[in-house]
């Protein structure tokens, strides 16, 4: 229902979160699963759109943890002797971005960009080019405050409880981490916190040496012991960790050899190991005594106090929190300067104020009034409500492709969709042009499968998105045995001795765009003798029903994780988010192989093959890729979009700045 969800359409994947999550919490970059348009089932998704409920609530690991084998780390000297270490990149996202921008040609001046109206790809490129630049020395106002928009409140300020997009937005700025990933989603260790990062030649170990000039917001040093401690807490089954345990559960152990040296031990040499070692960090000296008594980390008086004013290790700390209204972060002076000595660059904003507004119409009013400086725009807002002087007086807008896709999922265990021909018929029945041009205002791209065409894991030979072809759809249904035998205008088939009419329900969340897309599908199917009932439900109900596999079809979407392996839990037989009960031994095998294959080109081949198989099997009817559409105040500069939107990578939000007045 529109009212509850704020931004419009999106669902995003929480798997994203899981892995990525981890990925993000890093120093300068925040990450959040995205949020934007409000799509439906939050089922899956990243909490995007919907306000607060969109969360990835579900624990990714089973409730009952398998007993972990005891792990006894060898001595560091033995380890060093027995291991060939290979250096891995240690980088600063901001430095990388600055270098990349030095190579780019400016398409127009800043002043010109501020007068442009973003009504074509050309002006969009100009705006991004001119207003996306990092500041020259002294150009940024380091005392500035930015007012950001989030769709829902925080569930918790504890970084290991992270799961919704609002939590990624905010905890990404306050959290401490060793790793991050850049605009191309390639992982690296963050130069702000790490001296060196090495991986063993056999891929079973990762060794990180941390910087010695890091302190928590209470002044205690951040050490390798904090990281080992956090791993212990995250893996304790008594601690209700919603998302970040997926990934860390692939580790054998984490051991701190001294205050600055930490080694991660893997069970297997996986391509995904670089993501598994990236998890949020808690201050050991704060939680050491309290967590055993209260493993929920939120019920005891000490934990309640910490929830209100957490001890943090990132560049910002929370200074004010009004539930349901706003959260104010202030730059930590002891992040950039320790003992009076400047040790790292300070972030561009002194204060970041997050305004919590659920309704997209309300947030647009706030943007126009100058109360917030950025927000995600819905397709309707982009096209019809941000084109006049009223909007451009204070703001401008920009868009870029984003890896978030939407689909109709067919439950393969229902009597209707077990046959691949039926699922393909569904895909041939849908009117994609009507959806893209009319319902989505021509702003989204057609989608043929799991991985975006421009990603490294997509097939080299582009798959053509399905097009409406009612003749083919009818022929496929005839072939599959769905024929109108009892002359009531509805196709039917004898199943277990009973004539079953082809009539089913599709679940979608209560968002106007999603409902409209389902209604369009209903009309398309109606024309070929198939009845579909559209059943909009509350997003939490949708999440529940899809997780229990109690549906025939649903409308959903996934945000892309940073690694193609994150989609394994959507397609592998019996996987958590395999809502449609898809099972194909070859796909299962390819995921296994892809994870073990360390050569990226060969790995890409595995995932490309998965995409081709899925394309043939059509367990989903893929609908569209949803772009990022943002409105920005004209005072804000430095926004650069990645496939995960403008904020959720490194530097992401860290590159935003405001010029001095």
């Amino acid at each position, binding site marked *: *229902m*529109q*009212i509850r969800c704020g931004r419009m359409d999106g669902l995003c994947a929480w798997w994203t979160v899981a892995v990525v999550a981890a990925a993000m919490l890093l120093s300068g970059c925040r990450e959040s699963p995205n949020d934007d348009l409000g799509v439906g089932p939050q089922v899956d998704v990243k909490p995007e759109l919907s306000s607060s409920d969109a969360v990835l609530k579900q624990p990714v690991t089973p409730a009952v943890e398998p007993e972990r084998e005891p792990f006894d780390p060898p001595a560091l000297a033995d380890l060093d002797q027995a291991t060939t270490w290979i250096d891995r990149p240690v980088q600063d996202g901001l430095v990388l971005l600055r270098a990349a921008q030095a190579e780019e040609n400016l398409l127009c001046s800043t002043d010109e960009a501020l007068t442009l109206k973003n009504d074509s790809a050309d002006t969009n490129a100009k705006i991004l080019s001119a207003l996306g630049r990092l500041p020259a020395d002294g150009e940024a106002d380091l005392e500035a405050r930015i007012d950001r928009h989030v769709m829902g409140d925080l569930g918790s300020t504890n970084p290991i409880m992270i799961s919704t997009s609002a939590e990624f937005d905010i905890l990404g700025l306050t959290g401490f981490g060793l790793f991050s990933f850049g605009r191309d989603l390639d992982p690296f260790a963050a130069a702000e916190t790490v001296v060196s990062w090495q991986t063993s030649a056999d891929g079973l170990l990762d060794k990180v040496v941390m910087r010695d000039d890091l302190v928590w917001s209470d002044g205690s040093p951040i050490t390798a012991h904090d990281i080992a401690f956090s791993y212990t807490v995250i893996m304790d089954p008594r601690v209700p960790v919603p998302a970040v345990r997926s990934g860390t559960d692939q580790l054998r152990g984490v051991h701190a050899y001294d205050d600055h040296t930490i080694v991660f031990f893997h069970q297997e040499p996986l391509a995904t190991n670089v993501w598994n070692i990236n998890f949020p960090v808690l201050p050991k000296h704060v939680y050491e005594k309290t967590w055993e008594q209260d493993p929920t980390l939120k019920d005891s008086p000490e934990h309640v106090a910490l929830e209100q004013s957490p001890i943090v290790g990132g560049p910002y700390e929370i200074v004010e929190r009004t539930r349901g209204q706003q959260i104010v972060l202030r730059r930590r002076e002891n992040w950039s300067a320790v003992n009076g000595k400047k040790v790292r660059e300070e972030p561009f904003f002194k204060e970041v104020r997050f305004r919590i507004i659920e309704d*997209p*119409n309300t947030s647009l009013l706030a943007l126009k009034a100058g109360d917030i400086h950025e927000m995600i725009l*819905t397709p*309707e807002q982009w*096209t*019809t*409500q941000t084109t006049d002087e009223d909007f451009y007086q204070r703001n401008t807008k920009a868009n870029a492709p984003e890896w978030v896709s939407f689909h109709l999922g067919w439950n393969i265990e229902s009597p209707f969709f077990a046959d691949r021909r039926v699922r393909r018929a569904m895909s041939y029945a849908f009117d994609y042009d*009507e959806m893209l041009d*009319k*319902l989505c*205002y021509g702003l989204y791209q057609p989608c043929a499968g799991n991985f975006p065409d421009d990603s490294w894991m997509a097939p080299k030979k582009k798959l053509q998105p399905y097009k409406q072809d*009612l003749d083919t759809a*009818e022929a496929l249904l005839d072939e599959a045995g769905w024929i*109108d035998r009892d*002359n*009531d*205008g509805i196709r039917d088939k004898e199943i277990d001795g009973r004539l079953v009419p082809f009539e089913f*329900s599709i679940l979608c969340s*209560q968002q*106007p765009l999603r*409902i*409209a897309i*389902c*209604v*369009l599908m*209903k*009309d398309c199917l*109606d*024309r*070929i*003798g198939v*009845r579909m*009932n*559209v*059943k*909009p*439900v*509350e997003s939490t*109900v949708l999440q529940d029903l899809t997780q229990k596999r109690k549906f025939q079809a649903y409308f959903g979407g996934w945000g892309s994780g940073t690694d193609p392996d994150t989609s394994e839990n959507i397609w592998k037989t019996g996987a958590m988010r395999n809502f449609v009960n898809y099972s194909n031994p070859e796909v299962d095998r390819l995921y296994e192989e892809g994870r073990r294959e360390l050569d990226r080109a060969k790995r890409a081949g595995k995932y490309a093959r998965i995409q081709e198989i899925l394309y043939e099997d059509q367990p989903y009817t893929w609908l569209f890729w949803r772009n990022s559409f943002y409105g920005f105040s004209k005072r804000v500069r430095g926004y650069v979009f990645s496939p995960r939107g403008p904020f959720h990578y490194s530097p992401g939000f860290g590159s935003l700045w405001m010029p001095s007045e």
Partner: protein
Amino acid sequence: MNGSPSHGFWAEAWRRYRRRPLAMAALSFVGFLVAVAILAPAIAGTKPVLCRYKGKLYAPCLGYFDRRLEPVIFTKDKFRGEYPRNLQEKDPDSWAIWPIFFQDPYRSVRADEWPGRPANPSRDEGRPSRMNPFGTDQYGVDVLAKMVHGTTVALLVGFLSMGIAGTIGIIVGALGGYFGGWVDMLTSRITEIVMCVPTLVLILALVAIVDKPTIWKTMAIIGCTGWTGIARLTRGEFLRLKSSEFVMAARAAGAGPLRIMLRHILPNALAPILVPITFGIAAAILMESSLSFLGFGPPPPAASWGSLLNSARSNLAMWWLVVFPGTAIFLTVLAYNLIGEGLQEATDPRLREARK
């Protein structure tokens, strides 16, 4: 009711009612809505009202009332919902009578679906025009077609839910008022309990639980919770009338309680009871519109006035999404209120005296 005294009473009431121009206008308006609801497929639709195809007569427009009423031959012949061109192509001798507005309440009309006509405008471009007198919504669906087909829902909600409420209310009130004692005690307490249940919350809860929320279930709930006022009034009337002379006469003549309640008391109590029922109809229509506005109305793509209002929320510049359905809801609710008021004044002797 041959020769029963209430016969003259009703004729008298009708005479007085007819003298009130506003109440009569309201009654004609409701009559007009009933006509629109019944003739909806002939007013706006994309299926022929009547057509001759391959030598036989069909009325595909009935499909708007129930999908099963649409002749199967058109599905078999792969019309795929598009009649104008297919009729010509597949049987050049065919003829058809078309609805007044060639527009569909459930989908946007495609380009050239009616030879030579462009597709419906979508996004925010659907201002009222010759093709779409009331404009189109963001997805290109004609507002007039939606409103015409939504009339059925608006009327049904009013009549059915108040039918249910009236039945329950009269039975409960009659039992309590007539028998008194512990029966009265029991029915009065039940009435009070039901009064405490907020209808809107109950419906929201129901929508979350029920597998297939339909407009019928919504009506049932509005009916099952909206009878309390009627029950109280009925009880009062029965309490007053059960000691009147004509009831005593009937009892003396040996009539049983059921006969006394139905034949003697009820006809005399009906007039005051009808008034809250008319107001209830208006309230039910408003309730349905609010539910649709909140997104809990009949399942999409069902046309309903409230859901049209809802689609205006995201872009208030599309004034035609607010003005037309808003006016329709306003006028209908006003009409029922005027009818209720007219009834009250026509039947209440005290008010009649005051007017003289």
